[in-house]
């Protein structure tokens, strides 16, 4: 943490939107907190959030999950974030910004005030329930207005208009889009593409009215409003959202006489400096070479240049490509470069229209047919990545450019990674070039994961994942690195392949597997990689006790002794406490056992109690007492379900809407003992306050008034990942069926020691694919997955109960086979009233 002294010059940033936040991140990364005392003003009550995914607010996401950083991110870096404090003026003579609460001096000032939605001056636009779509507060207002509405209209059929239409659909309103131009998305698509887009969007139940200029809005007869168009036709609706473009929020700059463009926007140079060199501007308020950039990516590039400028660097903003790849209301739309061909005299076009599949593709190529100048895609964006590479890197087109958009039996020719020049941008979110990827490989990154961690490539929108993998594989191969997916030297198979072999051939022991499928005839012992992996696979398939003679040599020590080895060779014991609910009697038993065996006790993050320092030879006696008191093993040692954390829920909490503890206990009992590629953590929250922190778990369940919302593939720990909303408003049976399938699909297909979060990120096709498999049964395996889960559940038995009744298994818990003496090297000392390793 930095605590710059009062002498450090103050830097003020006005605006805490996506670009303003990115600027702060850039500044932190460059160590600017050493050189500036930074204050950020945001007029909204929320800290920076993801406006790109705003429509998900109505699909269950909240301000917290849309937030771009943790609540204490700014404070941690010594940056003051003043939310809900609007800057009302800039006094350039005094170098101060003025808010309702005071005056704040600056040495440097950055305007990141963004834009506001343009509301056409139609008479009646100021009526109640005529709203805009820009901020979370706007969305709250829309939600409130929608409460007693049945119909909604969006004025504006552009990108944001269609996003807003999606939001209205999410509120169950009969939705219509009114566009002034003759087609939807006039900036991105042409007449044919627009027609196709209209068909697809109307098929979703959204009415599309183009060529309509609203003349005025008046009281409706059946609804709140009546919109009257140029031809006196009318449309009645309860709610109107204006989304007819954006305008830069340049009022502060106008008031203090900074140079403003003719049509608005604060004029900046290549280093993001305004006409006053103490003041910079970035994002949608900034006007660079007479252009406003209304997308996040160019704003980020400006932020990067501005951060560099503030630190005396030379980095410049050189404009940005406005090519976009979108999924609006589920419909793919892509526009690259000069998609209309209007800026390129002499250009020629290729067009492909399939009215059956509803796909439209268009190429704009140079007069000689050698370079791609632009492209347009509706209905299917598969060709986008390849076309973008041709466009942005000026690659020579194939002899017949049409092959790039016409379906062929061999599939479209994909662009080989070797055809890309070094300066080819692979990841546009983080501006990672092919050269940067090669550099990270040269510096020692040996696989895709390492390259992603090193360069951040493909960690933004993820759109370049396939291309990045292609480049990395190709470059590794070029460096003589064979991309070997074998699990270890004993099997030339991936974990997934081994899983399929075991399942299909019904193989039940490691010995049989290595005899039939081992990589070598001589090396048959296996190793600490493949043995636990195969043990886990066998357990996932058949769930035989891991302590059986055939399986015991495969297990890691924690599984062998069903406890967690600590650094001095003793073990910790964690009995299952389902849902974190425990009776006073059982709680006392834990205390008594800990006292009797001198165990250090600590409450875990998963709402149970960990007893540390148990000697190997004491484990059976400890478990004898625990089992007699009704406990069973907690699998804290296994790659398996750990806990289902819960809040107290509707039973006690005045906010709870469902019995979260009851559901947590039910889930914990259902999935306990499921061996999986890595540990699994669940949580169930009884309301959207989310006290159980379900959105950081592999499986997170949150109660709503309409049922359960399921979040998946989250993670805490070293690499936190927010869980993604997977399905909403589920009843108990639906929830369990979906978790059954998802978990078993993970168990089947993940790599060893791959948590659900990384598995999900590496899944080709991403969340949509996972939803298709689990919710729509696109692979036709759901019945099988559910049946397999049922087998595991039916075969569950407490491993400890099985062990303490089996003299053969108990022999394993002797510290020494020829002496009952305890290990004298285990030495403990007392600290804060408990024993710990000396």
């Amino acid at each position, binding site marked *: 943490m930095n605590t710059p002294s009062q002498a450090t010059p103050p830097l003020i940033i006005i605006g805490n939107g996506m670009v303003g936040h990115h600027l702060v991140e850039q500044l932190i990364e460059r160590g600017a907190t050493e050189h500036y005392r930074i204050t950020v003003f945001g007029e909204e009550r929320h800290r920076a959030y993801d406006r790109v995914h705003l429509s998900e607010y109505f699909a269950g996401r909240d301000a917290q999950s849309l937030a771009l950083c943790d609540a204490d991110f700014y404070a941690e870096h010594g940056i003051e974030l003043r939310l809900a404090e609007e800057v009302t003026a800039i006094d350039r003579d005094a170098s101060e910004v003025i808010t309702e609460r005071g005056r704040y001096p600056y040495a440097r000032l950055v305007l990141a005030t963004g834009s506001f939605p343009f509301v056409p001056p139609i008479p009646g636009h100021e009526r109640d329930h005529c709203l805009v779509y820009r901020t979370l507060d706007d969305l709250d207002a829309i939600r409130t207005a929608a409460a007693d509405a049945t119909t909604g209209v969006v004025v504006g059929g552009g990108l944001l208009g269609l996003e807003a239409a999606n939001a209205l659909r999410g509120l169950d309103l009969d939705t219509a889009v009114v566009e002034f131009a003759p087609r939807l998305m006039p900036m991105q698509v042409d007449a044919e593409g627009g027609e196709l887009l209209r068909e697809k969007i109307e098929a979703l139940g959204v009415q599309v009215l183009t060529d309509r200029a609203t003349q005025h809005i008046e009281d409706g007869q059946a609804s709140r409003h009546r919109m009257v168009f140029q031809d006196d036709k009318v449309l009645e609706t309860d709610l109107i959202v204006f989304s007819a473009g954006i305008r830069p929020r340049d009022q502060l700059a106008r008031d203090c006489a900074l140079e403003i463009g003719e049509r608005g926007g604060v004029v900046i140079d290549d280093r993001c400096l305004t006409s006053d060199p103490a003041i910079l501007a970035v994002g949608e308020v900034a006007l660079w070479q007479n252009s406003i950039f209304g997308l996040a990516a160019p704003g980020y590039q400006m932020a990067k240049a501005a951060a560099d400028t503030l630190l005396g660097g030379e980095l410049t903003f050189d404009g940005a490509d406005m090519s976009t790849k979108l999924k609006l209301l589920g419909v793919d739309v892509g526009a690259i470069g000069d998609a209309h061909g209007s800026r390129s005299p002499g250009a020629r076009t290729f067009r492909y229209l399939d009215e059956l599949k509803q796909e439209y593709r268009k190429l704009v190529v140079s007069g000689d047919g050698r370079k791609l100048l632009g492209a347009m895609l509706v209905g299917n964006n598969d060709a986008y990545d390849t076309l973008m590479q041709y466009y942005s890197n000026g690659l020579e087109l194939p002899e017949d450019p049409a092959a790039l958009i016409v379906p062929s039996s061999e599939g479209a020719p994909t662009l080989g990674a070797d055809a890309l020049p070094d300066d080819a941008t692979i990841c546009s979110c983080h501006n990672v070039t092919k050269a940067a990827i090669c550099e990270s490989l040269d510096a020692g990154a040996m696989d895709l994961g390492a390259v992603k961690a090193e360069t951040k490539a493909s960690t933004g929108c993820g759109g370049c994942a396939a291309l990045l993998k292609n480049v990395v594989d190709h470059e590794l191969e070029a460096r003589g690195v064979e991309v070997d997916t074998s699990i270890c*030297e*004993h099997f030339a198979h991936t974990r997934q392949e081994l899983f399929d072999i075991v399942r299909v051939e019904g193989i039940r022991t490691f010995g049989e597997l290595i005899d039939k499928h081992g990589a*070598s005839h*001589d*090396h*048959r*012992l*296996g*190793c*600490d990689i*493949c*043995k*636990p992996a195969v043990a886990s696979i066998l357990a996932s398939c058949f769930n035989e006790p891991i302590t059986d*003679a055939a399986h*015991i*040599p*495969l*297990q*890691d*020590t*924690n599984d*062998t*002794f069903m406890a967690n*080895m600590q*650094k*001095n*060779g003793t073990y910790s014991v964690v009995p299952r406490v389902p849902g974190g609910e425990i009776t006073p009697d059982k709680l006392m038993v834990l205390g008594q056992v800990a006292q009797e065996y001198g165990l250090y006790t600590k409450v875990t993050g998963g709402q149970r109690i960990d007893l540390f320092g148990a000697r190997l030879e004491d484990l059976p006696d400890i478990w004898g007492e625990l089992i007699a008191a009704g406990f069973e093993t907690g699998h804290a040692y296994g790659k398996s379900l750990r806990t289902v954390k819960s809040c107290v829920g509707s039973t006690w909490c005045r906010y709870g809407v469902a019995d979260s503890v009851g559901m947590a206990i039910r889930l914990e009992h259902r999935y306990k003992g499921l061996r999986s590629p890595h540990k699994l953590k669940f949580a169930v929250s009884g309301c959207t306050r989310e006290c159980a922190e379900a959105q950081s778990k592999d499986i997170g369940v949150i109660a709503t008034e309409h049922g359960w919302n399921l979040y998946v593939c989250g993670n805490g720990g070293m690499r936190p990942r927010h869980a993604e909303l997977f399905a909403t408003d589920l009843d108990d049976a639906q929830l369990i069926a979906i978790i059954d399938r998802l978990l078993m699909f993970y168990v089947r297909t993940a790599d060893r020691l791959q948590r659900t979060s990384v598995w999900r990120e590496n899944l080709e096709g991403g969340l949509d694919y996972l939803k298709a498999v689990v919710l729509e049964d696109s692979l036709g395996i759901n019945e099988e997955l559910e049946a397999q889960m049922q087998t595991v559940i039916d075969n569950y038995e407490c491993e400890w109960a099985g062990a303490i009744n089996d003299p053969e298994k108990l*022999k*394993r818990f*002797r*510290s*020494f*086979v*020829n*002496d*009952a*003496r305890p*290990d004298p*090297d285990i030495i403990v000392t007392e600290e804060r009233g408990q024993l710990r390793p000396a």
Partner: protein
Amino acid sequence: MTTATAAAPTMTPTWQTLCTRADLVAHSGVAAWIETAEGTAQVALFYLPGHATELYAVDHRDPFSGANVIARGIVGDARGEPVVASPLYKQHFRLDDGQCLEDDAIRLRTWPARLEGDEVQILT
């Protein structure tokens, strides 16, 4: 149960009987006390039935953690040579000579071991 205290301290190596075959765990390890010329020691015994060498005896003490845990590691082979992986920090030790594969400077003590009928014996 056999104890090792009867072994006389002597310069001549002798075969001590530690336990019986039934005390061993196939394809895994158990720990035992032994008397050596330098005093008592904890030894890890690994039993690989059907393998060219069926019985190995190496130090039970893990030099990286100082804990007596080597017998609780996973046995396997690395490029054809039998090894045990430390259960704590996962370094591999060759069972033949105790050499650590990750650190040339580290080697576990080893002792010749054999099965005489059902008796597990070690040469100290």
